[in-house]
């Protein structure tokens, strides 16, 4: 079995267990009906709701593969929503111009991170922390800290709420982004360059690789992904919420990458794994919301504890040391 597939096994197994839990506890989880020419059901919701984190995780995987990290993605999401609101509501700009401009600005924000990391030489966690703090501030400045409703543009509402091919349009966006990224990264030498930079920077440089160029492009790409995620978030609630859009989602994105089997040390990376990681997180969220114990919802104080436990178990399963310990024990028993 190729290594990438082997790596995918554990996250898929975890997702499977979560789904199995739902077959036992919430049969309603799997019901899918058609209303207004659109499939509706919790499974569809999971895919729909997971889209922002899937997009963030795509960029985050590549950044982490270069032994970096990007903490600013949540703040960039907030910037994207606020900027789009400003352009659409205050300036009545055309939708396509708004999307292009917003994504452009977010890509620039990503490039800024890349410059700080690869040219100025600041550690990634510190460099991106700057934008994490400043980005949300900028977003709040743009909206005066208020929630700005964006209800004048049906086209904008389509991004996060429209129906395409009988499914939420977000699913099309997520699938295209994932396929496009995998094709570009895996069917060119780009993926190899990224792994090489993360694996051994000095060796990469001696091999004639533009380490700086690789870093700049992965951070820019992450900014772009965060921008798209921010547009979807704002479109979903048809409002720009600078205070809460993307808040703490950088952590979900990093978690998705880790659950997917990519090491934070850099080097080898698994895009499909990160997507499964994002799906695990969202399935878990929806499961907690839907599960009832003795006819009552899960008490809210337990939400985070349950999440932490599941994440802990999945991480244990991923750990080589734990795997070896289990193997050794089995060998002794035999």
């Amino acid at each position, binding site marked *: 079995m190729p290594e990438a597939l082997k790596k995918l096994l554990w996250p898929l197994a975890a997702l499977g267990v979560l789904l199995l839990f739902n077959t036992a506890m*919430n*049969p*309603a*989880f799997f*019901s899918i009906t058609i*209303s*207004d020419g659109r499939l*509706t*059901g*919790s499974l569809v*919701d999971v895919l729909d*709701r997971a889209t922002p984190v899937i997009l963030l995780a795509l960029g985050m995987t590549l950044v982490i593969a270069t032994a970096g990290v990007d903490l600013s993605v949540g703040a960039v999401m907030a910037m994207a929503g606020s900027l789009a609101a400003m352009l659409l509501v205050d300036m009545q700009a055309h939708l396509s111009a708004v999307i292009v401009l917003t994504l452009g600005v977010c890509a620039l924000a990503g490039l800024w991170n890349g410059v700080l990391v690869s040219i100025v030489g600041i550690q990634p966690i510190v460099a991106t922390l700057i934008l994490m703090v400043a980005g949300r501030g900028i977003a709040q400045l743009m909206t*005066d*800290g*208020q*929630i700005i*409703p964006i209800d004048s543009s049906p086209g904008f509402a389509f991004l996060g*709420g429209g129906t395409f091919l009988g499914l939420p349009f977000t699913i099309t966006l997520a699938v295209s982004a994932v396929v496009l990224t995998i094709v570009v990264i895996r069917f060119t030498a780009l993926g190899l360059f990224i792994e090489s930079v993360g694996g051994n920077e000095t060796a990469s440089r001696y091999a004639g690789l533009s380490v700086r160029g690789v870093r700049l492009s992965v951070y820019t790409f992450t900014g772009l992904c965060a921008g798209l995620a921010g547009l979807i*978030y704002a479109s*979903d*609630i*048809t*409002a720009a*919420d600078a*205070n*809460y*859009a993307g808040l703490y989602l950088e952590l979900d994105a990093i978690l998705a990458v880790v659950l997917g089997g990519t090491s934070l040390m850099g080097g080898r990376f698994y895009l499909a794994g990160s997507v499964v990681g994002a799906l695990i997180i969202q399935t878990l*969220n*929806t499961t*907690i*919301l*839907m599960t*009832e114990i003795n*006819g*009552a*919802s*899960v008490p*809210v*104080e337990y*939400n985070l504890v349950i999440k932490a436990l599941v994440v802990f178990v999945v991480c244990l399963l991923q750990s080589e040391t734990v795997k070896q310990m289990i193997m050794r024990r089995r060998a002794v028993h035999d």
Partner: protein
Amino acid sequence: MTRLLTLACAVFTMTLVGCSESGSGDDTLTVGFSQVGAESGWRTAETESIRSEAEARGIELKFSDAQDKQENQIKALNTFIAQGVDAIILAPKVETGWEPVLKKAKKRGIPVILVDRGVEVEDESLYVTLIASDFIHEGEQAAKWLAEKTGGKANIAELQGTPAASAAIERKQGFEQEIAKHPGMKIIKSQTGDFTRSKGKEVMEAMLKGEGGDEINAVYAHNDDMALGAIQAIEEAGKKPGEDIIIVSIDGVRGAFEAMVAGKLNCTIECNPLLGPMAFDAVEKALAGEEQPKRIVVETTIYDQSIAADVIDSRKY
């Protein structure tokens, strides 16, 4: 070393002189107001109310925006004390950590009036009074309104605020106390929407699809933003918010009024942010040496669809 000490003494004396000048110079009162920040329309309205009331009463207001940081507030309070203001109005960011600076204010005989949120201090005489809404009361009001609207029969989905936030705990408590009087009213689902629109939508979406989701015919949201998110989820599920499912929430933000005019939200309970007059009444009473209760409750107002259209234009926030 001696030179340094002399310098310090000189600076100290100058500050003393400075404050005695501004404190007793003329008859106009000087009041310092330390605001948390400007994170919501509600807060902006509160600041505006205190500003305009100060102006109306001819009081000189020293305003400080702490940009959501307690250390900035403590700094501001220290500055106010050094300037020798006559009284201080404080909207504390958190409940703890105020003891030292409040003691300093008390030593100088400067009365402190708290607004919005209380502080945890061993000695209650460190502040004059707390002017704030009562979250439990808000929850009760919401439940009362809902009981009347539904004739005491409802299967309620509750969207809670952020776990452990006092607003969430007490709004839940007040609501539960009140619906316990109506055996036909049940909370059949309850989860947290973290006070945000997006989470409110996600939670409602999942609740409607879960076991017994079809039975939900009322929603109680701990704030308007979650209710606005829930409205979207209800519409996407093919139901009519405001008719098939009755929705009541708390806060009274502009978006809630728009939703009520559109017939999608039924009722919002508002804690009035325009507490400037009450705050300065308390200041003047404190300076006159009058006794005051330790807690002054800000009135809540119930707005439903019948009056939403009439008030929406007069809303300042």
